[in-house]
């Protein structure tokens, strides 16, 4: 049972179409698992629909051009799916074969999926009991659990849960002692490491 959801402002911007790609990837993947948030997105889309039908219409050419095209065959989006073991939202960002994990810290492996502007999204695989060094954030960080679970000193995060962190949060997540965890992680801006080890870690991560 999912306990932790993306904040409502993210769901709203996702519905409006203004949320950046990296955050949208976290939200869309969570929606694969979460009927509650799918409902919230539908509520926000209903607002979009209501704004659309209430807007003052503007001068528009007649339907003739479109009428002439009604017999055109519709473009069928090609959707080749991959057998990656990850949700399909990640397909466009994953290699066709195996995920190229790279080591970056004791018990930690990372695979970058997206890097655009100041935003990075990747998969982080944590061995049982692995610890992500204490850090705080300059920008937002969103973490979605895809397997196992972790504890950040305050709460536990398991399958499908999303943790939203901003520049006020300092945390040191620890993967479950027996099963570890794999998370999809998005961050904006640079992490602020709190120790020498953490600075080294951040440098390795290239974050």
């Amino acid at each position, binding site marked *: 049972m999912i306990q932790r959801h993306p904040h409502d402002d993210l769901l709203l*911007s996702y519905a409006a179409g203004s949320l950046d790609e990296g955050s949208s990837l976290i939200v869309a993947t969570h929606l694969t*698992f979460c009927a509650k948030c799918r409902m919230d997105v539908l*509520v926000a889309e209903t*607002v979009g629909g*209501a704004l659309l039908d*209430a*807007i003052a219409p*503007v*001068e528009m050419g007649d339907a003739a051009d479109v009428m002439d095209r009604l017999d055109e065959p519709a473009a069928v989006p090609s959707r080749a799916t991959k057998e990656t073991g990850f949700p399909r939202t990640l397909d466009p960002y994953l290699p066709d074969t195996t995920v190229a994990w790279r080591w970056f810290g004791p018990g930690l492996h990372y695979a970058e999926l997206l890097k655009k502007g100041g935003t990075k999204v990747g998969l982080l695989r944590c061995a049982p009991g692995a610890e992500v060094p204490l850090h705080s954030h300059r920008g937002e960080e969103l973490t979605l659990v895809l397997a196992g679970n972790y504890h950040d000193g305050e709460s536990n995060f398991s399958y499908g849960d999303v943790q939203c962190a901003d520049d006020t949060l300092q945390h040191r997540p620890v993967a479950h002692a027996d099963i570890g965890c794999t998370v999809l992680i998005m961050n904006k801006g640079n992490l602020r490491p709190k120790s020498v080890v953490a600075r080294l870690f951040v440098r390795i991560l290239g974050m």
Partner: protein
Amino acid sequence: MNDVAAAAVPTPAQEMTTLLSGLGASRDRDDFGRLFAFYAPRVKAYLMRQGTEATVAEELAQEAMLMVWQKAALFDASKASASTWIFTIVRNLRIDALRRHRPAFDPTDPMFIPDAPPSPDYESEYAEMQDRIRAAMSELPGEQATVIRLAFFEDKPHSEIAAQLALPLGTVKSRLRLALRRMASVLEIAT
């Protein structure tokens, strides 16, 4: 009346939902013409409101309406109104036109977790849901209605909306959260 409150008032759009529901089976060009006459000028206006230049907005509005025709058989009035469904088509088309990407979940994904069967204390008929959501929209406090309008029309990150309103980012986010919570909560039927 601000436009968020105005949008809450029912419009001929309900009739459009009925028309669109039949279109997938009927392939009736006159019905499509009526949908076009109602939506195309609004879609164009919406796109222009978001900063799309008029001629581009007109072309995108035409593309959106062509998609409405092509995808009509997929429309399900128990899950959306015509306006909501067309809103999502326009949103996605515009994002494509801007060469941006908006990941979306795939309901045929083997990892997809379907909705639980509708609970008796939760509204599940879309038409009824929509009435409640619109009613809640009309009652949003002005400051929440303002951030909602900006979130839909301005296509800006929350940080820029905050700068524009000279408000702290946290205030903008919390107004958006309160607004969505308020509208979503009306779907739970009071017992």
